[in-house]
């Protein structure tokens, strides 16, 4: 545990032996139970950036959803800033909701199609207690500007924005409540390389300005190489490797990680190798 050791006070998020099972549904229980997380442990220090990679179905999204309390877990625990997430209620829960914000993969579905972008982002400010209409509007416009969008887009409906613009707007909505931790689930997978570059740069800029920690789930290893100082590799609901990004990419210990790195295509004409599946 290269970075879970020592200084527990500085830890923003600590997960211990977290397990989640999805029960098979329906009359015949078709599909059966799926163990989506199996004794997952990791920790995240304040101001750290952690990348989570792994094949599809390895439990990356489930892990984020558990932290957000959108999906329940069976055993183990996860604590945010020292407080067990599962037991929070009332104002403590509200506080968690505010301090941990997600940005999801699909920029098309993350905005209510019936509301303007400004209205969706303004909701965050209202929740922080800003009730003057003009006050909310000013904050929204400032934030849109911060994420590199034209402030006049506050009046636009979600379907009028491009994928990249919508993803920026989603980031703005998350930032409105001044979170301490951003959870990003494949935030650039639906975007072009050129737009991805802009969004990734934006995350770096905003982190410098707002100072939040960040967990980034992606299937794209080079994105972690650019964005994150720590890396967690998952497979079939389990953590197979973790450590500083440069170390893991430079000297992977687990064969699975090695396969993952070998199969990550880079722009160089290098042949992608299929990963060994054990």
């Amino acid at each position: 545990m290269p970075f879970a050791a020592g200084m527990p006070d500085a830890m923003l998020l600590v997960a211990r032996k977290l397990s989640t099972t999805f029960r098979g549904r329906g009359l015949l229980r078709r599909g059966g139970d799926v163990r989506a997380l199996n004794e997952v442990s990791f920790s995240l220090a304040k101001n750290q950036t952690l990348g989570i990679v792994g094949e599809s179905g390895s439990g990356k999204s489930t892990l984020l959803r558990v932290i957000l309390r959108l999906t329940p877990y069976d055993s183990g625990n996860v604590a945010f800033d020292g407080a067990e997430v599962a037991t929070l209620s009332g104002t403590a829960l509200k506080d968690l909701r505010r301090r941990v914000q997600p940005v999801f993969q699909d920029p098309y579905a993350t905005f209510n199609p019936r509301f303007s972008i400004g209205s969706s982002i303004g909701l965050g400010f209202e929740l922080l207690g800003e009730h003057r209409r003009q006050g909310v509007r000013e904050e929204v416009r400032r934030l849109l500007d911060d994420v590199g969008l034209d402030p006049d887009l506050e009046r636009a409906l979600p379907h009028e924005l491009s994928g990249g613009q919508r993803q920026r707007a989603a980031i703005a909505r998350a930032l409105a409540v001044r979170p301490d931790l951003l959870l990003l689930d494949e935030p650039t997978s639906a975007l072009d390389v050129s737009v991805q570059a802009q969004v990734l740069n934006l995350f770096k800029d905003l982190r410098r300005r707002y100072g939040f920690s960040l967990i980034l789930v992606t299937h794209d290893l080079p994105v972690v190489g650019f964005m994150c100082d720590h890396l967690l590799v998952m497979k079939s609901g389990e953590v197979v490797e973790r450590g500083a990004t440069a170390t893991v990419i430079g000297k992977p210990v687990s064969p699975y990680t090695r396969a993952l790195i070998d199969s990550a295509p880079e722009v160089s004409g290098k042949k992608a190798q299929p990963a060994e599946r054990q």
Partner: protein
Amino acid sequence: MIRQLNWRRYGLVAVTLPVVALVFLAAALAPVIAPYDPFELDVLVMLQGPGENHLLGTDELGRDILSRVIHASRVSIVVGLVAVAIGATGGVLIGVLAAHFGGAVDSVLMRFMEIVFCFPAILLAVILMANLGTSVLNAMLAIGIIFIPGFARLTRAVAQTVQRQPFLEAAICLGVGPLRLVTREILPNVIGPVLVEAAVAFSYAVLLESALSFLGLGAQPPEPSWGNMINTGRGFIDQAPWISLAPGAALFITVFSFNLLGDGLRDVLDPKLHD
């Protein structure tokens, strides 16, 4: 300008809306536009066929059919509006609750709705009215109750879809409370489909009210309603078919155009037909 109308999207509404408006207008202005007093008996012109003085003829008591058809539209429309209001309010409430709480609450509510749904509507209305008494008010109530399951199912389906959307989860993660989630995120998405359902339900309410009146359970004579007029006309169908045919035609036109309006609204609200 008319050339640029997007017919695929607005065509049906553009055609049916004037008819629907006409029906509403006739009901609202009945005393002004009806040529005769609908209750005025005139034994001299009993069972007279359509003609110069009485455009749609007269009934067995010499009352002007056109005036009675126009006045009867008031009963139909009031019953339709009130019944739909009852059905939509109750249904949306139950649907949202079922979708929001899920689990046992959902099962109990929806099973109950299904039981109500299983009864033939007219039978249920008859049973309800047998207990409540026969009056227009009770007819509205009975029809409204019949509509609740339909609206509830629809609302629950839409609300459940919305609940799985990332935008709802994003709102939850912002810390939006349950009440606000429903009013802000879910209801706006429910309104469109409910509006469509309401138009169709309205036509169905008019039909049901007529059926109840026909059976003598709705509007009581001499108060005219399309249903009781058709019923009265039954006895004279050979000598004076217009007594039944005129309210029948009014009923048909109203029901048909509200049904089409429902389809038309569906087109208007369907984002795939956006230009």
